[in-house]
């Protein structure tokens, strides 16, 4: 018995719906605007009706670039630059590993990677406290 004898087949033409191409066009428009005006933006992938195939299609189309980062805060977050510099794929997970936000971010660096002023101030306080104890 070969694979062909199994009546279930994988649908391969879903990409023809065109959602991936539409989104790639949107990304291209935003990337051009980013170059002209420095305007960063995000696309919420969870708000778009993708089939599982299309979602994988988008991943393949964007590919992976040179940079990636990981946050370990209330669950992990994965951030990587795609094959197109300035186009980042940002996925936030909760502690149980479920996706809580899935974003394409057009920016030089995703906003959430920046150290936050409140956290910097807290860190300085802790450092000064440590130094005062070492005296």
């Amino acid at each position, binding site marked *: 018995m070969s694979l062909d004898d199994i009546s279930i087949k994988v649908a391969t033409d879903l990409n023809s*719906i065109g959602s991936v191409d539409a989104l790639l066009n949107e990304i291209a428009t935003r990337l051009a605007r980013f170059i002209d005006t420095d305007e960063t933006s995000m696309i919420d992938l969870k*708000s778009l009706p993708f089939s599982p195939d299309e979602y994988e299609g988008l991943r393949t189309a964007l590919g992976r670039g040179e940079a990636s980062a990981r946050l370990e805060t209330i669950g992990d977050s994965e951030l990587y630059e795609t094959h197109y510099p300035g186009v980042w794929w940002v996925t936030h997970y909760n502690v149980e590993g479920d996706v809580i*936000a899935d974003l394409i971010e057009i920016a030089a660096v995703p906003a959430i990677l920046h150290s936050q002023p409140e956290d910097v101030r807290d860190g300085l306080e802790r450092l000064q406290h440590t130094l005062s104890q070492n005296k």
Partner: protein
Amino acid sequence: MKEHETLEQRLHEQGVSRRSFLKFCAAMATMMALPPGSATAIAAVLAKVKRPSVIWLSFQECTGCTESLTRSHSPTLESLIFDMVSLDYHHTLQAASGHAAEQAREDAMKEFHGQYLLLVDGSIPLKDGGVYSTIAGRTNLDMLQEAAEGAAAIVAVGSCAAFGGLPNAQPNPTGAVAVSDIIKDKPIINISGCPPIPAVITGVLAHYLTFGALPALDDQGRPKAFYGETIHDRCYRRPFYDQGKFAKTFDDEGARNGWCLYELGCKGPTTHNACATTKWNGGAGFPIEAGHGCLGCSEPKFWDVGSFYTPLPAPAADVTAFAQAAALAGAAAAVVLSTADRAKQRRAQRTRQKLTVSDLKGE
């Protein structure tokens, strides 16, 4: 009872970093269907709000709505209950029982009179003096009227509280009705579904905290952000409907190819909910993705509108016309939006001003 502190204080005490909080707000923005870049604006507001007291009453129900909420993945139940709100009474989740539990409810009602949020799941039976569902010897009707009196707003969680649901199905032996059939003088928001999507429950609470008001509602009292579009309009199988490709049985070639389930009784075209985009079980999928049509559980009387497997009565051509009309109406609404607050949002983006919550409100 401890004075209700702000979310920022609470998180700081627990050693939660600002970056974590921003991530949490990014998840919120996704959930509330707000522009994804608005997380910073949401964080600024949420950090300063005082956690509101929440009283949750469960009436004639199956606890499925609570089950749904406790499987809410964004934010986690822990953060929702302990950080965003002060859940002062919920008879399934609270540690106290018996007289102590009822005392907690009465204390919260007195201390936060006029300010607390009342969440209700389950319908309210009215027949025979309401004897079919009682808590601590009191009828649901009695308890609802008492708790509603001092509530700032009421959230009817699930199709039973919103529309009467399954208990209200023909022949409705207990005389079950919805919250809105009894309470007429308070803002009521219906989060329908059997059960509702957990993220929608938490999203509405987050919206209330961020904007200090209930979100915009449709004609059924449901938040438009989640119930504004039909399952059909947002379904990834919609293109097959437009191409006239339908599964005729659950095991034919069309079913295997993932074609539209309209002819198998899918109620997607008449059902307003966010399943197709928000999805279930941590984003794993939704019924149509698993190969079964939508049951229409977020619509009134979904048990009494015929078989789940009978195609919707209107012939396909009419439905298409209806869908086109709906799409046009949607487009018109979008135009109105874009001329008002969207324009301002774009202006803010162009001049690279920071987006604020007032901008999102369209002020």
